[in-house]
């Protein structure tokens, strides 16, 4: 990427160089301070979770855990059915991600490369649903789920989250980027339209599908509002709900135990962040005219 001011800099008089160096240093300092404010709370969380529970209230706070101690983590496993919560979250998030990838790929392909009556109008409707806040539809969705006897099950979290307007939009954009001549070539070779999709277009769209999957994973792993409404019994809680309940149970208990739970819940998100950062950024800013 070309830096904006690099080129300007080369035409600047030599006399101002030194002044520029200082302004660069100042800018880096300001950015570093901002980064400390952003990363500091997370590092404090990690460090406090590694301190013995008895020391978790200590001030000044030790940002480096000098005597790392996993007692808090053992406590979390005792007080909270962490394994169950992780399994629930993984099941819900995984099935939503796979479901979104499949349905969005199919619908995105249809909107991009198949011709049918009402295509434009239908696509506009799909886009328009993105603007409706989830809170407005939650009451009828809750009643529907209750009506079919799925309330307080994991399916109540999974099924309504699979149809995805944003994923469909993203996959349509992706498929539009693939030439339609591929379909013509496949047709000449005698491939059926379904075969054309499955063997030609779908494999080429894997990077787009990865974006849809990663975004779905990140969003639903962290989701709080819907699980709060849809699940009642603790065995159906997902991680964020379990953590908030842990905080309630402990009351005056040790901070480091609660924070150990928080750290555990962040690990999968962190893994996704490390491997899918580019895809996440692209997905979040997709369709914003960037």
């Amino acid at each position: 990427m070309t830096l904006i001011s690099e080129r300007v800099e080369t035409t600047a008089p030599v006399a101002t160089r030194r002044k520029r160096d200082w302004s660069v240093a100042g800018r880096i300092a300001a950015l570093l301070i901002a980064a400390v404010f952003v990363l500091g709370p997370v590092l404090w969380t990690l460090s406090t979770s590694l301190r013995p529970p008895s020391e978790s209230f200590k001030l000044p706070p030790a940002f480096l855990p000098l005597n790392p101690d996993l007692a808090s983590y053992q406590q979390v496993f005792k007080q909270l059915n962490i394994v169950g919560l992780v399994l629930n979250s993984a099941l819900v998030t995984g099935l939503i991600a796979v479901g979104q990838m499949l349905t969005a790929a199919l619908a995105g392909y249809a909107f991009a490369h198949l011709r049918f009556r009402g295509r434009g109008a239908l696509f506009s409707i799909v886009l328009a649903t993105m603007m409706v806040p989830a809170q407005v539809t939650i009451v009828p969705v809750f009643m529907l789920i209750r009506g079919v006897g799925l309330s307080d099950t994991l399916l109540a979290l999974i099924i309504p989250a699979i149809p995805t307007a944003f994923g469909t939009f993203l996959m349509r954009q992706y498929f539009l980027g693939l030439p339609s001549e591929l379909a013509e070539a496949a047709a000449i070779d005698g491939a059926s339209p379904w075969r054309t999709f499955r063997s030609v277009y779908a494999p080429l769209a894997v990077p787009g599908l990865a974006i849809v999957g990663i975004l779905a994973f990140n969003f639903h792993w962290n989701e709080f509002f819907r699980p709060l409404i849809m699940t009642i019994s603790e065995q159906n809680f997902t991680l964020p709900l379990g953590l908030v309940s842990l905080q309630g149970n402990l009351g005056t208990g040790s901070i480091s135990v609660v924070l150990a739970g928080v750290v555990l819940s962040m690990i999968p998100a962190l893994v996704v962040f490390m491997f899918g950062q580019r895809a996440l950024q692209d997905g979040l800013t997709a369709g914003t005219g960037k």
Partner: protein
Amino acid sequence: MSTATSTPTGTGKQPGRQATHKHSQPSKRGRVQQRWLPWAFLAPTIVGMGIFTLLPIVASLALAFFRWDIISAPTFVGFDNFAEVVQDPTVRVSFLNTIVFVIVAVALQLGLALGLAIMVQEKLPSWLRVFFRSAFFFPLILSAASVSIFMRYLFNEQFGVVNWLLSLVGVPAVPWLTTPGGSAAVVILVYVWQNFGFSFLLFIGGLASIPVETYEAASIDGATGWRKHFYVTLPLLSPTTLVASVMAIINALQVFDQPYVLTRGGPGDSTRTAVMVIFESAFQRLEFGQASAIGVILTLIIMAITAAQFRLSKRFVFYQ
């Protein structure tokens, strides 16, 4: 029309080539298959959205005119729900809180994001740029519930790190979470902390699309430092700013997780938000009609603000 529907893989851009494309002469069975094929591809999404988005929108609108507690049969009450909701002091305060929250949080979020994006985008070693970009983006991947949990400890009055830091510069302990003003401030700070990275990413994208030549021309004309940003960057960035502000406002209007976990809406009603009263009236008081009415009002507000922004933008947004 028949050619259009019978060539599912036809190219939208080159209708003239459909004649050659049809050379394979699909069998009757093939042609029938081709006609329903697009609908087979669309069925999971369309049916799912119909059931879980479109139907609920209509149902929510209808439900706003009924009184219903799930147990007994719903009764039609006309505009009573709306009248009650509009007069309910808690609902009023919550909407007012939400509006104040949106104004302050969005202003902070956009200002911070824009300032940092400009600083990151200017002459910096690329590894530093990557580091800052990842750092500012990082909070977005965390759950708002987890973030609110550890922020509650950071803002604790007696043993929180924030008050300890303030004490170093001689500020007496601030009762962050036990006073109305303090908790409102914490909710805003925590929300902005977690979300400014999104606007930041949008601004980075917008800045990257400004042609270098524009800056060269400006510097030949003698523009330097802040003047350069004021007269070149900001006008050229206005389309990005519009998108970033629309998205930031829509998201902020729906704030729930942070105030719910941080303060449960208190003390008093000081951090109760619009979405929180929807949640409470539906799932705690079982007044589903009133909850729907509040939801309808919130949706109308969101639509009105979005429309107003796009109208205003015609005057202030500068397209290249």
